[in-house]
């Protein structure tokens, strides 16, 4: 598994997203309250580009007439047919055990720590030790 630096952390603020291309794979990266998550940028249904989807929360009803709205901003809807995915896991809302989009390990790392990693792949920009970066394991 190789670690790829894809962007400065400041490029994707909380609630934001970016599309990264890492080793030929298009990965949609999301910032949920400071944590980064990555999903393969194609819906397992028909291939819609997930990075263009809207985010929402979960509207659930434990019983008819009772509604809860939770996990605001953490559910991604495909821009085509509206299939929903949990940004944290890639699992679909409809059939979480069977249908999912591939999730990638994404983390925030300091430039200073990254400077110590010989295997690192920084794609197209220099890494400065005083900044944080988004790193994808692939």
């Amino acid at each position: 598994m190789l670690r790829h630096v894809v962007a400065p952390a400041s490029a994707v603020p909380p609630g934001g997203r970016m599309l990264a291309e890492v080793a030929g794979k298009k990965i949609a990266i999301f910032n949920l309250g400071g944590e980064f998550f990555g999903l393969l940028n194609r819906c397992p249904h028909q291939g819609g580009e997930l990075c263009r989807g809207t985010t929402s929360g979960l509207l659930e009803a434990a019983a008819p007439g009772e509604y809860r709205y939770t996990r605001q901003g953490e559910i991604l809807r495909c821009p085509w047919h509206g299939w929903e995915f949990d940004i944290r896991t890639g699992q679909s809302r409809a059939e979480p055990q069977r249908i999912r989009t591939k999730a990638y390990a994404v983390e925030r790392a300091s430039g200073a720590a990254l400077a110590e990693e010989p295997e690192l792949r920084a794609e197209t920009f220099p890494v400065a030790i005083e900044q944080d970066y988004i790193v994808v394991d692939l």
Partner: protein
Amino acid sequence: MSLDLREAGSATPGATKPAIADCDIHPCLMQAKDILPWLPRRWQRHMEQFGMLPRHGYQSGPAYPKGQPDAARIDAWPPGGRPGSDLGFMQRQHLDPNNVALGILNVIAPAAGAAQNLDFSAALCRALNQWQVDEWTGKDSRLKGSVLVPYEDAQAAAAEIDYWAGHKDFVQVMLLSRTAEPLGQRRYWPLYAAAERAGLPVGVHAFGYGGYPVTAGGWPSYYIEEMVGHAQCCQALLTSMVVEGVFERFPGLKLVLIEAGFAWLPSLAWRLDKTWARLREEVPHLARPPSEVIRQHVWVTTQPMEEPEKRRHLHDVIEWIGIDRLLFATDYPHWDYDDPEWSLPVRLGADARQDLFLRNALKLYGQG
């Protein structure tokens, strides 16, 4: 490397994909008033002063709000415009990357054929037909139009068909599925006579404004119910056309059911055959089993494709209908778009695939 999110339609190049026919593409006006230059002065004034009242109780808009804005793919909005309003954007996002060799245009908004003012309906259909030629088919030869007709006034509809008959840019006549009366009834026959005369299939696209509830059981609460209701609406109109003997009276007539799915078709035919065998004395003009009439005269577009849990069930359905009767369609740019590469949930042999994705449409629409 980061990619620019704003650059829509960054799909893979189409040259490597097999050519397809897309039998349901929706162009639309950027704004309603953009049709004014194609209307005579009298109807420009009418549109500016009164607008179009569709055949239902609301001032404007469809009966049910859609699941996504303008019922469109979120990624299909061209800069500054409505989905479907920009030919260049459509070419870059859909026609080129998906290698669309033949694209059938179905203008469903505005629903000109459903305008309650019948003279305005006729004028608006004529204007939108000319607009299709000027703005779409004349600019991209892969695209062919569907003649919009004021179908609640079948004489006027027939005149509109006669007007465009033989025009190379039009390959079918288009109605919407919700109409004032079931489509087999005789008030619509002049329209079928004209279509038969012109050698044009009649495409019936889901939606429209009949003035009645969108399900046979009344007004439902949810958009989901409207979505699945198209199947029952099309079953009703097809039953009407078969039982009224439309296809016996117009033996050259070809009917295309657009955007209502297709898995319901075999069960309807079984039910019709069984009932016909017992009650045929009521309809002596219907001399053949309804399934035979359907097989001879009816085509269906594939989108929105049913997605059964066991995919082989779809095989069974396709086998009954006949692969030669299925026309691939995407419904671009609408939200329930079917992608040519991924939407077909069953494996087909190379020949059957070619038929479904391309050859059936070329043949039906005379483009072979």
